[in-house]
C-alpha cells in the first residue's frame, strides 16, 4: 500500500493523454447523447396534450418549449421529461395558452372557400372541427385559422361540430358561436335549407341557444303560364308536398277547362305561409285571362296578361288584393284584349255550345253560389254574349232528378239568376238576359247514374 502511495506522485503524466481522450470523447458522443435524450423526452411526453412542442437538448439539459392547456397538464409534462433517465436539468419554457373571453368560433363560407376561425380549446377538437368540415364540404377549399385558447364553454366540441355540419347547407354565410350563443346569417344553398338548419339547431347541446338566425332561402317560386296558342297551362316551380301538388293540379284542371295542364312542379319544403290558398286564388285570376303569366315568388304574386273585357280586368285586380292571405303582396299588370268581332246569333249560340261542351258552370252543392273554379268560364260566356249585341239570351238552369221537384225548380231558377247577375256585373245589359229554371224536367241523360246526373245539372245558354 505504501508503494501505491509512493508511486501515485508519478501518475500525473498520464493526465495529458487522458485530456486528449476526453476532448475526442466529448466531440464524438455529445451529438449522440443530445439526440438520444431529445428522443427520450419526446417519447416521455407521449400522450400529454400540448401544442407547438419543441424539445432542444444541450448536453444533458433539455429545454422544453410548449403551449399547455391547463396548469396540471403543464406541470405533468415537465415532470414527465424530468423523470426521463439521463436528463440532468429541464428548462421549463412551457406556458399556458391564453384564456379568451368571450369564446368565439366562426365558420365563414364565401364563393371559393370555407374559413374556420376563432378559438378551439384543444388540438384534438381543432382536428375534429376540420375533419367535420372536410366531411361536409367535399372538395371545397378549407382554410384553418383556428387558434387554440382556453376558456371554452362546456360541450364546445359537440356544439361546434353541429355548426360546422350546417355550413354545408349554406351557399354563403357565416355561423358564429359566441360563448353559448349561436348566430347565423347568409343564404341557404337550396329551398328548405333554412328549415333544415333551424331543425338541426334544435339538437344543440344543453345550455346553447340561437341568438340570431337570419339565414335567407332562395325564393320559393311557383310559375304558371297560360298559352292560348298551344292551349296549355304550364306549371313550374315548387309546391309544399305531394298532396298539395295533386290538389293544385286537379284545381287547375277545373279552372283551365280548355287547356292542357303541363305539370313540371316539384315538391319542396320552405313554402311561405298561406301558399296553397294564395296560389289557388292567383290561378283563379289567371284562368280569367286569355293569355297570361303568373309568378309567385315567396309572398309576392305577379300576374300579367290580357283580360277578356274591362270589367273582368277590374274584378281581377280588386279580387286578388282582397282574397290573398295576409302578408302577401300582389302586382297585377292586366291589359284588356281587343273585343272580338260581332257575330250573328247563330254563331253566338254555336260558341256557347262549344264552351259548355267542355265544362259547365259549377255551383256549391245544393246552393246557387257559383264555384270559384267557374269564373274563367263565366268570363268567356260573357265575352261571347258581348259579341252578339243584338240578340237576347235565355239562361236556363237545370237540375238532376234527386230530391223534391219543387226544390229543384227553385234551385234551377236561383242558379240561372246567379249566372245572369254575374253577367250583368260583367257589363251586359240586363234586358238582354232572361233567367229560367226548368228543374229536372229536361234531362240530357238518364238520372239513374251519377254521370248522367252530373250531365243533367247544368246551365244552358239559348240565343233568341
Amino acid at each position, binding site marked *: 500500500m505504501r*508503494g501505491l502511495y509512493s508511486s501515485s*506522485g508519478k501518475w*500525473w*503524466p*498520464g493526465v495529458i493523454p*487522458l485530456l486528449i*481522450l476526453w476532448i475526442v470523447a466529448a466531440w464524438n458522443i455529445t451529438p449522440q447523447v443530445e439526440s*438520444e435524450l431529445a428522443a427520450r423526452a419526446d417519447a416521455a411526453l407521449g400522450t400529454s396534450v400540448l401544442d407547438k412542442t419543441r424539445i432542444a437538448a444541450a*448536453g444533458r439539459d433539455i429545454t422544453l418549449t410548449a403551449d399547455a392547456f391547463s396548469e396540471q397538464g403543464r406541470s405533468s409534462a415537465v415532470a414527465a421529461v424530468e423523470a426521463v433517465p*439521463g436528463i440532468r436539468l429541464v428548462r421549463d419554457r412551457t406556458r399556458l395558452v391564453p384564456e379568451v373571453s368571450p369564446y368565439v368560433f366562426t365558420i365563414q363560407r364565401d364563393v371559393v372557400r370555407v374559413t374556420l376561425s376563432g378559438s378551439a380549446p384543444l388540438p384534438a377538437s381543432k382536428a375534429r372541427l376540420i375533419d367535420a368540415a372536410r366531411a361536409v364540404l367535399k372538395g371545397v377549399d378549407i382554410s384553418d385559422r383556428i387558434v387554440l385558447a382556453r376558456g371554452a364553454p362546456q360541450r364546445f366540441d359537440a356544439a361546434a361540430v353541429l355548426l360546422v355540419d350546417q355550413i354545408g347547407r349554406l351557399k354563403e354565410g357565416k355561423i358564429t358561436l359566441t360563448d353559448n350563443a349561436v348566430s347565423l346569417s347568409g343564404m341557404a344553398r337550396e329551398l328548405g335549407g333554412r328549415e333544415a338548419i333551424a331543425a338541426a339547431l334544435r339538437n344543440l347541446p344543453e345550455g346553447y341557444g340561437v341568438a340570431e338566425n337570419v339565414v335567407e332561402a332562395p325564393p320559393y317560386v311557383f310559375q304558371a303560364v297560360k298559352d292560348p296558342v298551344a292551349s296549355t297551362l304550364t306549371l313550374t316551380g315548387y309546391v309544399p308536398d305531394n298532396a298539395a301538388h295533386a290538389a293544385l293540379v286537379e284545381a287547375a284542371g277545373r279552372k283551365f277547362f280548355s287547356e292542357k295542364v303541363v305539370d313540371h312542379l316539384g315538391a319542396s319544403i320552405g313554402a311561405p305561409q298561406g301558399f296553397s290558398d294564395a296560389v289557388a286564388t292567383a290561378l283563379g285570376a289567371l284562368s280569367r285571362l286569355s293569355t297570361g303569366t303568373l309568378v309567385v315568388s315567396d309572398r309576392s304574386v305577379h300576374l300579367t296578361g290580357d283580360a277578356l273585357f274591362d270589367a273582368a280586368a277590374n274584378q281581377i285586380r280588386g279580387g286578388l288584393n282582397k282574397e290573398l292571405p295576409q302578408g302577401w303582396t300582389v302586382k297585377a299588370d292586366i291589359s284588356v284584349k281587343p273585343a272580338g268581332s260581332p257575330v250573328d246569333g247563330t254563331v253566338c249560340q254555336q260558341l256557347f255550345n262549344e264552351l259548355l261542351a267542355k265544362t259547365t258552370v259549377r255551383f256549391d252543392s245544393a246552393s246557387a253560389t257559383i264555384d270559384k273554379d267557374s269564373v274563367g268560364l263565366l268570363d268567356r260566356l260573357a265575352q261571347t254574349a258581348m259579341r252578339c249585341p243584338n240578340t237576347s239570351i235565355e239562361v236556363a238552369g237545370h237540375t238532376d232528378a234527386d230530391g223534391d221537384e219543387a226544390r229543384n225548380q227553385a234551385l234551377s231558377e236561383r242558379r240561372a239568376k246567379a249566372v245572369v247577375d254575374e253577367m250583368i256585373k260583367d257589363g251586359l245589359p240586363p234586358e238582354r238576359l232572361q233567367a229560367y229554371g226548368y228543374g229536372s224536367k229536361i234531362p240530357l241523360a238518364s238520372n239513374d247514374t251519377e254521370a248522367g246526373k252530373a250531365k243533367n245539372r247544368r246551365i244552358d245558354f239559348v240565343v233568341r
Partner: protein
Amino acid sequence: MMALFDFYWGWLVGALLIGFGSGWISVVHRGPDLSRNGALGVGGIVAVLIGLSLARLVPGEPGFWLDLLLVMFAAYLIGCAVGSWLRYWVVSRQMRRS
C-alpha cells in the same frame, strides 16, 4: 449519467487503460514526483470541479463535458491504482526470486 453508460463506456475503458499504463510505469519511473503543493492544487481543482458538477452549476454542453471529464478521471485513477498495485506485485515477486 449512468443511464447514458452505453454511449461512453468505450471511452471510460480507454481512460482506465491510460491510467493502468501510467500506474504500471510509475512504479519504475525515475522522473520527478508531483510536489506536495502540486498535489494539493490538483486535489483542490478536482474538488471544485466535483462541487460544480454535483451542484449542476455548469449549464448545457459544458456541464456534460465536465461530468464526462470527472468520470473519465475517476476511471483513470482506478486504472492507475490497479496498474501500480499489479506492477508492485510483479516487481516484488521478481525481487524475492533473485
